[in-house]
């Protein structure tokens, strides 16, 4: 395994950014923990950086996990001062879990000046960055959903409003479903998108402002036979015909068809009137990191945020579109990506992204509350949140 590097040259950085050199004194190795599936998007960018700058980063190892693993993995390391993970790529949830546990170096506050490319975020990506505060750096972004995916053999009249969806589910019990939001991107996008569609009082306050949403989900729940823990099972249900309709996002509509886990005959649709609930991946650095590594990571991030590199985030449509940086257009992406996207993307995606309003997701603390309410009142069905 790569050296953990706690020798003199790589002593932990003090709080001020001044101790961190512009360039590491010697090439470092990086252990990257990806808890968001982000490797698919940024893996190519990192590889290219390492190839071009062996004097900064000699090699990189990746490990993967789920968002809840962030604390399980990183906290013991930070607590014991013995870091094995150098960089964490995570979604909003993992990032905030770390913030709660005080695991991250406040990169933006301390080293914002070295990440000048952050100025080039496209607007919704900038909003995601604002949401995160100082502890993470947006590397990729997508508008997410909620969209609908359906099996055209079964679904003849595609719903275009939540009410129509409810009616359809009522008419076809057990044929619509979604995963437990806490464990599923499309699930939580659906959850967070509903208040906008249903016209709830305060779409950012699940406790007090989501009356219509909760009522709607409870009623819808009568026709859902179960809520899997994970989007994988939802895709399988859709693929093998168990279900005929699910909520989805741009990425989750395209990627399974590209990778072949869903038949390409599956169709997608969108509600007539809805608001995108955006999503992003962040980079975060655990506390106690050595100055050399921080310096290397900063250089890496700055590079990732160039349009040429960031365009690789189109990938296989998993996070469609993906880039967070202005000007990272599809034509800058590798050829394979361009081909796949051309074949599998819905022709109405780009227009819809232009057209429809976009909102940031709930702040992590609110999101946990929303999940808790969902678990009690929708998932389990009978427990009032106190």
């Amino acid at each position, binding site marked *: *395994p790569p050296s953990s590097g706690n020798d003199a040259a790589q002593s932990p950085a003090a709080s001020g950014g001044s101790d961190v050199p512009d360039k590491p004194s010697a090439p470092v190795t990086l*252990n990257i923990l*990806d*808890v*968001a*599936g*982000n490797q*698919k998007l940024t893996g190519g960018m990192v590889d290219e950086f390492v190839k071009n700058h062996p004097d900064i980063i000699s090699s990189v*190892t*990746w*490990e*993967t*996990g*789920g*968002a809840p*693993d962030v604390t*399980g*993995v990183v*906290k*013991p*390391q930070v*607590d*014991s001062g*013995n870091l*094995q*993970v150098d960089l964490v790529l995570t*979604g909003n949830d993992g990032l905030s879990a770390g913030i709660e546990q005080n695991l991250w170096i406040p990169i933006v506050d301390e080293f914002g000046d070295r990440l000048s490319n952050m100025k080039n975020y496209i607007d919704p990506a900038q909003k995601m960055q604002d949401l995160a505060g100082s502890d993470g750096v947006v590397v990729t972004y997508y508008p997410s959903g909620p969209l609908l995916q359906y099996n055209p053999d079964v679904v003849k009249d595609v719903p275009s409003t939540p009410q129509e969806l409810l009616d359809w589910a009522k008419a076809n019990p057990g044929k619509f479903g979604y995963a437990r939001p806490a*464990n*599923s*991107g499309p699930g939580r996008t659906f959850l967070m998108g509903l208040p906008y569609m249903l016209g709830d009082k305060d779409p950012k306050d699940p406790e007090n402002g989501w009356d219509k949403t909760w009522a709607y989900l409870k009623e819808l729940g009568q026709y859902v036979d179960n809520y899997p823990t*994970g*989007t*994988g099972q*939802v*895709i*399988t249900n859709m*693929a*093998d*015909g168990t279900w005929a309709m699910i909520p989805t996002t741009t990425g*989750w509509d395209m990627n399974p068809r590209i*990778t*072949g*886990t*869903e*038949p390409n005959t599956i169709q997608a649709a969108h509600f007539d009137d809805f608001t995108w609930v955006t999503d992003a991946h962040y980079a975060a650095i655990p506390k106690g990191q050595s100055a050399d590594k921080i310096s290397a990571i900063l250089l890496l991030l700055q590079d990732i945020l160039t349009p040429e590199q960031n365009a690789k985030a189109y990938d296989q449509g998993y996070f469609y579109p993906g880039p967070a940086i202005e000007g990272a257009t599809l034509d800058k992406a590798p050829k394979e990506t361009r081909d796949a996207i051309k074949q599998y993307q819905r022709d109405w995606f780009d227009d819809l992204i232009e057209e429809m309003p976009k909102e940031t997701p709930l702040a992590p603390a609110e999101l946990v509350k929303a999940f808790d309410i969902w678990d009690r009142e929708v998932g389990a069905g009978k427990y009032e949140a106190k």
Partner: protein
Amino acid sequence: MATTTVAGRRKAQTLPGERSLVASPSTWFVWAGMAVFLVFLAGIIVAVVVDSFGKQWFEGWLPAAWSTSWYSSAWERFELGEVIGVTVGVALAVVVISVLVGVPASYLLARRSFPGKKAVTALFLLPILMPPITYGIPLATVMYAFGLGRTVVAVILVNLVPSIPFVILTMTPFIEQINPSIESAARMCGASIRQVFTRVLAPLLVPGILAAGILVLVRTVGMFELTFLVSGPGSDTLVVSIYRAMTSAGGGEARQLISAMAVMYTVTMLVILVVALRFVNPTQLVARVKDARED
């Protein structure tokens, strides 16, 4: 009485096993139950195997197309060669150490009464009864504090926590069955305590040690909670890899990829077990190997 008639009559008559089988409907019931269980089992295994070789399998009895690509991609993506190596290495190390530490302790518990024996026994019972989550995180912190985080050493150490008590609990009745006068005989022959252990007890305990070892092996290879908390790249075991594959990236990997990994897990386990079972009879896995030992 002529031999021919004897032979003839012998055919006509029922032999021991047959009669009871034919006579009892309850036996047929049990056999039917076992058949259902085995069909289920076969169904489950075959389904996963088929799935792991299916390129795509949306509907119908079988996948539309076949491929081994899930295996190759799982192998490459998760560096399974290394992972399996780590898994086997960790499992063997845990077995060896827990036997070395556990057997002497169980000897003492089997042979001696001493003040506080009850408390010590209870202490050894707790790690088996307690859910790992109650002590897993602090345990992981301890590991990291000693700079062992994400090392194979740490993975071995945390797996020893439930394994040593397990060896102690399974070996104690085993040792109780060995006639203590054999040890006395060895001492009368001039053997010191250490020699009694290495020359007499150890060979006699081999079947029991194998049995306990196999159970520890199975548990260690299957142990997710504790391993996960201290392992990392280079020290992940197979279950942890599968878990990471299942939960990574929000939605997890394709079903077929998980199937392929599950199949590899089972094959690994089977290989280990078959090798081990060459030495022990499955129904003797738990205790009481007395009759086998006596002849």
